[in-house]
Structures are given as C-alpha cells and as structure tokens.
C-alpha cells in the first residue's frame, strides 16, 4: 500500500471524441435502481476491527471541505491542520495505525481561499492537494469566459484539483454537444490539475439525464465525476450514485480508462461513509477504493468518524485500560453504552466528547461548521 501522502499521480487526462451513440439509447430503470439502492444499504455492514479499519480508510478519501461566505485564513488554517491530523494520535496508537501517516485526501475551498490553504499546508509541511471549486460555483450561471478564467486563476494560485459545476441548462435542454465542448474547455483550462466535474444531480430531472451527463463528462476528459455541490436541495443519494457508478463502469469497459467518483453533500455520519465505501466496492470493485479514484466531499463527517473510532469496542478495550491505570473512574454512560452506538449516548455527552476531541476548535467555529454542512 503506497502511502497516502504520496504525490497524487497527475496522469495525462484522458478524453475521447464525442460519441453520442453511447448515450442516445440509454434508459435508466428507476424502480430497479431504487430497489438496488435500498438493498445495498442493508446488506453490507462491518463491525469491530473491520469497522475501525474501514472508518480510517474513509478518512483517507475525504475532501475536507469548507465552502462558506465567512471563510477566513484562520479557519482555513484549522481545516488544513485537521486534514493533516484527522484522527487523535492516541486513538491511532490503540489501533496500531499511528505510523501510517493518515491524512485526508485533499482540502477543498473557494478559489479565493486557495492561497491560504496552500500556505497553511506548506507551513505544516505536507503535500495534501488543494482542491478548489470553480466555474461559478454552485449555480454555474455565469459567462463561460469568466468561468474559464476562474479555473486558470485557481490553478495559478496552486490548486491541483478543480471541482467545476456543469451548466444544467445544457443538460435539461439536451444540448449534449455544447456540454461536451464546455467541459473540454474546462479540461484545457485546468492544464495539469485534476478535473472533477460536478453534475448537480439534484437538478438534472431524471436518472437517465444523470447517466447521460456522466458519460459526456467522462468523454470530455473529467478525472472525477461528482454528485453535487452540496448546495442543492437533493444531494448525494444512493440511487444517483448507482447510476453514476454504472456509467463509470460502462466507460471503463468501453475505453479501459478508470474515472473517479466523488459523492458530496449530506454525508455527515460515519455510518453513511461506510455505506458509500461498500457501495463503491460492490459496484466497481476494490480497485476503485483509492484516493485517486474515490473521494467523499464532506465537512462534518470527519468528527463523527473520529467519535465512532473512539466508540469502537477495540479502542474501548484499550482506552478503558488507560482509564483504569490512571485510577480514573469510567463514566456511567460509558459502562452502559459500550455495546451500543453513539446515538444512544445522551446528547450532551456527544457534544462534550466532540469538544474534547477537537481542542483546536472554538465553540463558535464548531457550531457554524455544523450549520454550513
């Protein structure tokens, strides 16, 4: 397993000429997709060691994101610190994972904050890539010229991954050639940087459109296709993901090229993240479970994962022995809820556990971050 710290491989972006026959006959069977989506969540669960390992793996897929109007260099700094040290050191030690150099896959910010992020990460001495949203995020309703300029500027500032939003108008009116051309131009503007194309699936109208848009985005040379901006009313859902994953598979079968997948928006709980991992594992296989091909866009997910790793019976066995060595009394709720999930904990305990786990965050920051998500 190569270290996740390794420089993300900047492969020459693949693209192919537009072939409308790949999408013209396509028809997605929505009831069947819904049924599959329903089943897959119930069929795969992981427990104990597996859960802990999967959760830590999920951390390495996270594009740690902050996209709010009041982002400043200080909270970007904190974000970058969190990206570098996503999980408490003592927890990692109990799982014998402290030497893996665990970080998130990237940090994701607005174009104007790319400089801050690059600086902060440099200061921390790590090579986590900085991703920037661009092209009139989140609506994409600005002129093509300014959208392209936005990409170029973000790349100039040091972003190595660009999350662009597509023009939904083109999808809804069926202008597939125009959509292809636009994404081609985004691709060119990105240069060496990775292109992640946000389909904003909540606004595409139908699953068939989701499939077609995915295919066009891949043909035009996207490195990743991403579900949503996180600002639509409907964000990353399982049915949409299944359609996108099948499109990725079809594209792979047709061209031999692997395109990545990034669900974003609404993924808040550790349990959700596990479901996403198993979904990708089931639909595309293990080879897609690397940060090069799978990302999760999230802002508050990380803290829940940390809490769940902490609640894992494995960590508990060791942590409680630490408690006992220090002659500290195990709090009553810990004794009662050892076998249970964190949702059984009283609310105030959850909060205090979170605050203890994130000493670098101020209370106000935390509440705001939660709301933004």
């Amino acid at each position, binding site marked *: *397993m190569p270290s996740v710290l390794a420089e993300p491989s900047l492969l020459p972006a693949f693209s192919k000429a537009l072939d409308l026959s790949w999408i013209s006959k396509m*028809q*997605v*069977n*929505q*009831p*069947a997709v*819904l*049924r599959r989506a329903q089943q897959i969540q*119930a*069929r*795969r*669960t*992981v*427990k*104990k*060691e*597996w859960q*802990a*390992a*999967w959760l*830590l*793996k999920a951390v390495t897929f996270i594009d740690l994101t902050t996209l709010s109007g009041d982002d400043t260099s200080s909270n970007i700094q904190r974000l970058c610190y969190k990206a570098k040290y996503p999980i408490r050191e003592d927890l990692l030690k109990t*799982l*014998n*994972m402290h030497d*893996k150099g665990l970080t998130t896959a990237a940090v994701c910010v607005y174009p104007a904050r790319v400089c801050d992020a690059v600086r902060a990460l440099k200061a921390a001495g790590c090579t986590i890539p900085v991703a920037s949203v661009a092209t009139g995020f989140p609506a994409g309703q600005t002129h093509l010229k300014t959208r392209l300029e936005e990409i170029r500027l973000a790349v100039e500032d040091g972003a190595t991954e660009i999350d662009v939003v597509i023009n939904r108008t083109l999808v809804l009116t069926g202008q597939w050639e125009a959509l292809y051309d636009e994404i081609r131009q985004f691709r060119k503007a990105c240069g060496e940087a990775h292109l992640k194309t946000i389909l904003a699936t909540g606004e595409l109208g*139908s*699953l*068939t459109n989701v499939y077609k848009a995915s295919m066009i985005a891949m043909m035009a040379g996207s490195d990743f296709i991403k579900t949503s901006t996180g600002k639509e009313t409907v964000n990353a859902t399982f049915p949409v993901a299944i359609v996108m994953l099948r499109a990725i*598979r079809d594209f792979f*079968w047709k061209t031999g090229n692997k395109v990545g997948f990034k669900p974003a928006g609404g993924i808040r709980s550790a349990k959700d993240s596990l479901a996403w*991992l*198993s979904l990708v*594992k*089931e639909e595309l*296989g*293990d080879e897609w*479970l690397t940060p090069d091909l799978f990302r999760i866009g999230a802002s508050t997910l990380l803290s829940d994962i940390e809490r769940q790793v902490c609640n894992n019976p*494995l960590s508990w066995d060791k942590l409680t022995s630490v408690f006992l060595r220090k002659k500290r009394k195990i709090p009553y709720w810990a004794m009662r809820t050892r076998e249970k999930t964190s949702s059984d904990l009283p609310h105030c305990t959850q909060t205090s556990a979170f605050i203890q786990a994130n000493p670098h965050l101020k209370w106000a920051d935390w509440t705001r971050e939660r709301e933004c998500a």
Partner: protein
Amino acid sequence: MAATRTKPSAREIFTTLEYGPVPESHACALAWLDTQDRHLGHYVNGKWLKPEHRNSVPCQDPITGERLAICLQAQAEDVVAAVEAAGTAFENWSGLPGASRAQHLLRLAKMIQKHQRLLWTLESLVTGRAVREVRDGDVPLAQQLLQYHAVQAYTQEEVLAGWEPMGVIGLILSPTFSFLEMMWRICPALAVGCTVVVLVPPASPTPLLLAQLAGELGSFPGILNVISGPASLGPVLASQPGVQKVTFCGAIEGGLRLLIQESVWDETMRRLQERMARLRGGRGLDGAVDMGARGAAAHDLAQRYVREARSQGAQVFQAGAVPSDSPFFPPTLVSDLPPASPCTQAEVPWPVVVASPFRTAKEALAVANGTPRGASASVWSERLGQALELGYGLRVGTVWINAHGLRNAEVPTGGCKESGSSWSGGPDGLYEYLRPSGTPARLSYFSENLNYGTFGLAVPSTLPAGPEIGPSPATPYGLLIGGHFQAPGARSSRPIQDAQGNLHGYVAEGGAKDIRGAVEAAHQAAPGWVGQSPGARATLLWALATALERREAALTSRLERHGTELKDAKVEVELSARQLRAWGARAQAQGHVLQVAGLKGPVLRLREPLGVLAIVCPDEWPLLAFVSLLAAALAHGNTVVLVPSGACPIPALELCQDMAALLPAGLVNVVTGDRDHLTRCLALHQDVQALWYFGSAQGSQFVEWASAGNLKPVWVNRGCPWAWDQEAKGAGRELGLRAARTKALWLPMGD
C-alpha cells in the same frame, strides 16, 4: 473458513478493505429451544403435546451439523387429536363477530413483533437462509399479512355476506418451505373463521414457535395446531372426516430461467457475471451475506445439476465469495445448454440460473409458456408496449415488469399449471376458505372401491329402443364440434327416453375421438375469443339469449316431456335467458387495480380465462344448469367443451342449433354420449385446461384423482345436486370465481 483463520488486525484490514464477519447472536433461539429442553413435540390446542413412544429426528444446524434439538414424529392418533382440537375451536372461532377475530389477529401480529428477533434467528439458524432475508423480508411481511387479514375479518359480514367459513383446514408443508409460506395460507383461513391443522416436515421448529405465540394469546388456543411428522401422514390428515379442505404449500423459490434477447446477450451476460461475482455467501446468521445455505440436500441437487449440464456441453460460470465446503454452493450461471439436454426440461435448483437466448418477443413467450410451471415471471424491458404484451401473454400467476420478487398481502399470489391453482393473499385468498352459505359441508364421499383403471373405460352398447312415435322418424342429434353438427366417430346413437319411458329421440354416442376433435376445435377458437372485448362477448351472449327466447315454446315442451311441470319449465327457460344476459353484463366488469404500500405504481389484478374448459353438466335443471355454466365460462373468455345432461340432453341440443349459427366456430363444442366415458376422456386429456364436473360422487372422485396427474384445476359437486334456480348458486359468485384465473401484474413506475 473465517473461524479457523487468525483474525486480521485493523492495520491489515486497512490495506485489504475486506468484509468481516457480522455474526447475529442466536442466543435467544437457543434459549427458546432450552425452554423445551431441546425436545420439541407438537403444539396442539394451546399446549405442547409430547406423546411417549414416538420416533424422533434430530434438528440440526445445516452448516455446522450441530444438533439443536430433538423433534418428535407424529403418528396418526396425534393427527386425530389435532383435528379434534381444531374442530372444537372452530365452533367458537367461526361464531365470533369478524371484529373480534380481527382483534385477535392483530394481537398475534403484535406478538410476532415482540418476538421478531427470536423468530428470525430461529428461522435462519434452522434453515441456513440469510438472516437479512428473513429479518427484512419475511418477518415484516408476516406482520403485514396478519394486519391485512385482520381488516378483511373486520369487514367480513359486510363484504363477504353469503359466504361461510369451510371449517377445519389441513395444511401440508413441503420439506423446504419458509414459515412465510405457511403465514400466506393460515392468515386468510383464520380471518374468515376457519381453524387450521398444519403438518410440518420433521425438524422445523419455526411453525411450532408461531403456534406457541398464537397459543399464548390465551383466548382461542385451538385455532392453530402444528404437528410435525413425515410426509406419509399427509393422507391421514386429508382423510380425517373433520377436515374440510387440504392445501399444500410448495418449496421456497428455486433456481431461475433467464431468457435474453440475442441482440443484448453479450452485454447482459457480462453484467450478470459482474454482479454475481460480488455476491457473498456464508453462514445464514451473518448479517452481511447475500445468500446462506439450504442444507446438504440442496447442495447435492445443485451440484448434480451443474455437473450434468457441464457434461452436456453447457458453459458454467461460478463466482462470488462463497465458502467452498459442503452446504455452500456458489451462485451459478449456466448457458449454452443444448436444446435436447435433459437439463433444459428439469427444474432448475437453487442457486442456479440457466440463461438461453431468444430472437423475438413472440419466441420468448412461446418458450416461457412451454414450461410446465407457472408461478411467477418477470419481464425486463424499457419498451413499455413490449413489456405489457409479454406480461399479459405469460401464463403465470404473477408477473413483475422491471422488478422481481415483490410481494404484498393485498396482492393475490398463486399460479397455474404445475404450480397449482390456489390463491393466497388479496380477496382471492379469502375465497379459498369460504363456501357459499347453505352448501353442505364436505361429506366423506371418498370410496375405496372405485377402480380408477376401469371407470368409464367401456361404453355399454346402445341398441334400438323403439318403437318410435311421432310425426316423422326422428333424426339423431349430431355433435356440435367446430361450429357444425357432425356424426360421432363411433357412428352410433343412443336413445333418450322421456318421463313416461317412451323414446324421445336419439343423440349421438360420442367417444374419445370426438372429445379429441372438440378440444382441438376449442383450442383453435381460443385466441379469437380471448381477443374479443368484454363488450363483444356480452353482445353475443345477449344475442343467444334472444334466440333462446324465440325457441321458448319448443324448449318448454321438451322439458315438459321430461317430466317438468309446465310452470316450472317456463321458469327454467326464462331463467336461462336471464342467466345469459346477466353473465354478459358481468363480463364487462372484471379485474381491478390495486394500490400497494411501498410500491410506486399500480398492481393490476387481471382475470384471465382458464383456456379450454370442459364442463360435464348435471342431470337436474337440464337447460338452466347447461346455460348457466356455459354463460359464465364464455363471459370470462373461455372456450368450452360441454357434456350436457345425460338424462335430458335434448333441450341443450336444441339450443346448439342457435349456437352453431350465432357463435364463432369451435367456441362451444357439445358432445353427448356415455357420461362416465366422456368424463374419463376429458379428465385424462392433457390439453383440457380446466374441468368442471357435476354428476355422481364416483365421477367426482375420479375427476379429482385424474387431475392429480396433469394438475388441471377441477371443480366437482361430489354428487350433491344444486339448486340452480337460486341466485346463490346458478348465477352466484362462486361460478364467476371459478371461471377465470387471477393474475397479478406489477407495474412499478418512475423515471
């Protein structure tokens, strides 16, 4: 297996990202078995019955082989005790108002909800099925079934007026069944007021647990009794005088046959294999497996099938993360099976899928309908028109369009051909356990002396019965076959005598050859008649009614000559015309749309014709019975072969002259002759799709026996004459129920 391997550390899993075991604790199932000292008997009348001096069989975990409990094998006297208990309980239970029965069923649903964990772990532990399947599918559906049928019980007095519960129902379960199959049958039976005796195969504790849950409700202990014993007890249960009806329940879903259009064959196979490779198999009590195991017998069956298919040159694809040792068998895709291979005909075992290509939808339909089974099918197509055409054309009980395996308590589930002809769920399920009020209970009409080999085999010779009186020498009536009258194959006639013993006329002496011709003609007419709109059918029936009225004088005099009072004869003719019109009108309103919880889209409940229906008419009410049966059958789109009353066939034959002129050729075929002989020919004919018999007790017994061989739906009167002039009978709903088959067509929607 996972247990023998050293447990990987979190660090290793971080790299491999493999799935781990998710064991579901089955401590409660074991604890329940402990309450019985691991010694299970039968559950009768709210108590455990553990008679002494009985054989016992071990109940084993199908995967580890660990012995979980010992199960006693019942003997005949245990069955008698259970039937007696059910009989006693029936008196109270059936007398209750529907609302109280509804209350009781709801309490049972609550009881199941309280103990659902015990239920699903026990079922998964004993059968080896994936716990996820039982927990997320079967248990909620079991509760839903109880709730739905509680509502039906509540409205019984209003909606099912004119029907009464049959009595004690015997239910025989096949060796591989799920407890859900039992619930599908006991819920409607209990709801309408019947009580049940279930004979389960040895070593199946789940039905016993269900019976205990029902028994512990206290008030009506004897309504559900469970006996565990060998299949040889089936006839004992069936022949108990108290048992009014016996139903069988088949195995859980087996393997599948997949028909794929050639143009998408490669693509579909690739996707199928990709998906199969990701299936996980393992111990049923693991929460993250897709398929469990179904014991060594199922494994051997699948292995034999796959080995044979391979030896015949088929392609076999096996995949999935499934343990390689005995009870586990990987999901298997068999393709390129040579058409002549025996595997093409044999039933596909679980978990095998046999794929074969087809060129056109028409060809697919022919292949699919060519199998002897007819429980369910699914159609996958993005073209709605094509999918619907296939959905309507498939001869099965349930069709899912672009979905598979959906079930709901409100939707009737059943089948046709070898998959049986009884229904469970929905309104159709209720009628299985009801009979029109006032009909006598089933008497023990079963005769040991009937020789099936010789019944109706030889036709007594017919000799001249002269002297002929009347204006001119009476020409014998011919047989109405394929739209015109023809002479019988045997070239002989039989005399018909009137009430005074004088010769009334000659009718043709039909035989096996004529039956063959009639069935053939009926088959040819079937597609045309099925394709007619109900309105067109009604028009024809009404035209026939008018023709019948024109013949009123002749028909009345014919009836009078056979000893009917003039007044009654007039009434009979008048009622006959009314019957034709009434059924014509009813033809218009059939089937309806169901809206099912949890499904976006409708479920169509279709009423489809049975096909070629043979009817042996009773001697009583020679014209009215003939017309009632005929009208009901035609209104529902069947084509018919009729044997009119033996003593008085002439009024019916008179009407045939109008039918020959009015109706499409072959729609109605009438064969006269020796009734026993004709009944034998019809019952043993493989292409007669259903048979109604109104005649002697012996004939009824023969018909039931003969239909066991080709599994055609039969309806017999067991020698009891019917009052055809009463609405409850002649025109009643039972006739309508019997004249068509229900099909559920699921149409999930969405884009």
